[in-house]
């Protein structure tokens, strides 16, 4: 198992290096940063001086290594637009996105698994069919439309929940949380549902089909023949066997929840990194864009790694001592 973990970590590092290369290339090829830094009143001497100062005259490889070294130390450059270090800006914005992503992932997993199990057990029931049909809406409607619909119903018509922003936040160290105020909690409901709805329906449909598959297996029939309670069979024996594929998909989906937060954050004007990214694109703020790209890829790689390790926890057949002993 250790060898496997080491191999996976090495693969992850390779992936991150590649993403770093792409992020770095953005600086090189999306316009000349010197043009951006120096205004129109520049002289050729100024350009040369700044180029030298920024190390832009070094060979490509040297620049790349320097970039990586800086990134590792948390130095992601300075935002062109705000003139502040990018790492500072992201640290300021990250709590909003992580809280939003966390709540919607929780929503997606809890409801996805719960409803998936329910619709699998009550396969032909009216409620199950109803849920399956409506879940098609979750899969097929685009996120921004769901967001706007929710805003229309709950913010405009009913006036129960705010339509934008994070509400009041409380600072705990550098982390600003919206969980401790009523307006913060209210504000997170609509964006979290909007962001998690697609993932929820996806997980639900996956759990359902996996569960139906497992319920047909011999070991479930044998568990019934031993008179185990329906609850023990459905939630102990069947659900655990559906988890491996479900965890794979869930892991990937949590990654995309963070990535797709861009749209939801735009719709709800949620002050997270997604909104930061959109604004950065509008102003060609390359350091911010590059940092965002790296951040998202680190998340994806990390989640994938955790998912791979979770397999071992769930499925004993994957463990290293899986040598079949004969009789």
């Amino acid at each position, binding site marked *: 198992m250790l060898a496997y973990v080491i191999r996976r970590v090495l693969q992850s590092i390779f992936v991150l290096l590649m993403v770093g290369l792409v992020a770095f290339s953005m600086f090189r090829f999306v316009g000349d940063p010197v043009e951006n830094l120096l205004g129109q009143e520049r002289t050729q001497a100024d350009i040369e001086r700044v180029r030298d100062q920024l190390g832009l005259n070094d060979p490509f490889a040297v620049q790349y290594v320097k970039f990586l070294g800086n990134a590792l130390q948390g130095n992601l450059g300075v935002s062109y637009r705000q003139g502040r270090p990018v790492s500072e800006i992201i640290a300021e914005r990250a709590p909003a996105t992580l809280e939003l992503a966390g709540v919607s992932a929780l929503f997606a997993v809890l409801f996805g698994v719960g409803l998936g199990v329910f619709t699998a057990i009550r396969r032909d029931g009216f409620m199950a069919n109803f849920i399956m049909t409506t879940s098609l809406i979750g899969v097929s409607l685009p996120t921004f439309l769901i967001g706007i619909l929710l805003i229309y119903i709950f913010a405009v018509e009913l006036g129960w929940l705010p339509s934008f922003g994070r509400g009041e936040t409380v600072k705990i160290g550098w982390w600003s949380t919206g969980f401790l105020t009523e307006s913060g909690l209210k504000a997170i409901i609509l964006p979290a549902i909007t962001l998690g709805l697609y993932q929820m329906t996806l997980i639900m449909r996956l759990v359902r089909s996996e569960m139906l598959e497992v319920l047909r*297996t*011999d*070991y479930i*029939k*044998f*568990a*019934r*023949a*031993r*008179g*185990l*309670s*329906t609850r*023990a069979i459905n939630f*102990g*024996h069947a659900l*655990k*066997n559906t988890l491996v594929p479900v965890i794979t998909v869930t892991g990937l989906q949590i990654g995309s929840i963070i990535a797709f937060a861009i749209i939801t954050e735009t719709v709800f004007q949620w002050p997270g990194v997604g909104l930061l990214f959109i604004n950065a694109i509008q102003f060609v703020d390359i350091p911010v864009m590059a940092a965002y790209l790296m951040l998202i890829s680190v998340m994806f790689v990390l989640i994938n790694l955790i998912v791979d390790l979770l397999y071992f926890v*769930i*499925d*004993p*057949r994957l463990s290293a001592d*899986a*040598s*079949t*002993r*004969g*009789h």
Partner: protein
Amino acid sequence: MTTPLLSVRDLVIEFPTRHGPLTAVDGVSFDLAAGEVLGVVGESGAGKSLTGSAIIGLLDPPGHIASGEIYLKGERIDNLRAEDMRAIRGRRIGMVFQDPLTSLNPLYTIADQLIETIRTHLRLSEREARQRAIGLLDDVGIPAASRRIDDYPHQFSGGMRQRVVIALALAAEPELVIADEPTTALDVSVQAQIIDVLKEQCTQHGASVILITHDMGVIAETADRVAVMYSGRIAEIGPVREIIQNAKHPYTSGLMGSIPTLAQEEDRLVQIPGSMPRLSDIPPGCPFNPRCDKVFDKCRVQRPALIPVENRQVACWLYEEATTNEVAT
């Protein structure tokens, strides 16, 4: 006469289809005494497994019991509420399935599965249940049971897994064990061992056995009585020795003739011409009539009921007169 342990009366199992119901088991009746081993043989699709599943209340929908009754020690069990039937499964009727490789949940240790089963039915502490589980594994011949109990199913071979399955089926001391083709999926070399373990354990725990198989050899060695099924009906039922030595029903004698023996040297084995009819077109009268070499007019029109002949019952018109004559004299 004492109440039989299990009594099946006119069991009919149907599958609804668009073209009306298909009758997969049609009017099966038999009794099973306490401690008795009943073999059930027949070709694939004869309704053996369905009968077994119906007794333990685990027919896969859309199959269902259309009519008939099943009694366990005189109590009717085929119409119980799901929860009451669940309490009987495992506790009073145990079941062993065909494929030991897929019968055990791959994600739980043998200990988890045994202890869970034991504690579902018996009021024991975790520790007592574990002790009992180790004892059960010992009994079914798993070496170093106290160590191996914490292994996962994939760490056992097929034969060993079937032993575990037998231990699981017997975990709560059921009165009846239904073994559905318990050796079919196993290597020939371990089949005999598994049958021995099954029989020995059931005898020790005082459980009756319904042994469903298509292996006449297994039945001959193990069973007290045998029921031969054909097209969802019992063709002949009676003591194993008598039926093997002197089959009455033409189907049974065909079946016996198709088994190679060491005593005789034959070039070709006897073969029954044709094949079992599909459920959708079982012929009127005796379902075996198109393949029977002793067929006469009545067989094509009227279905024979089980007719008592000597110690057994045969569903064949050939023996109608024999009984009436006997009654007459």
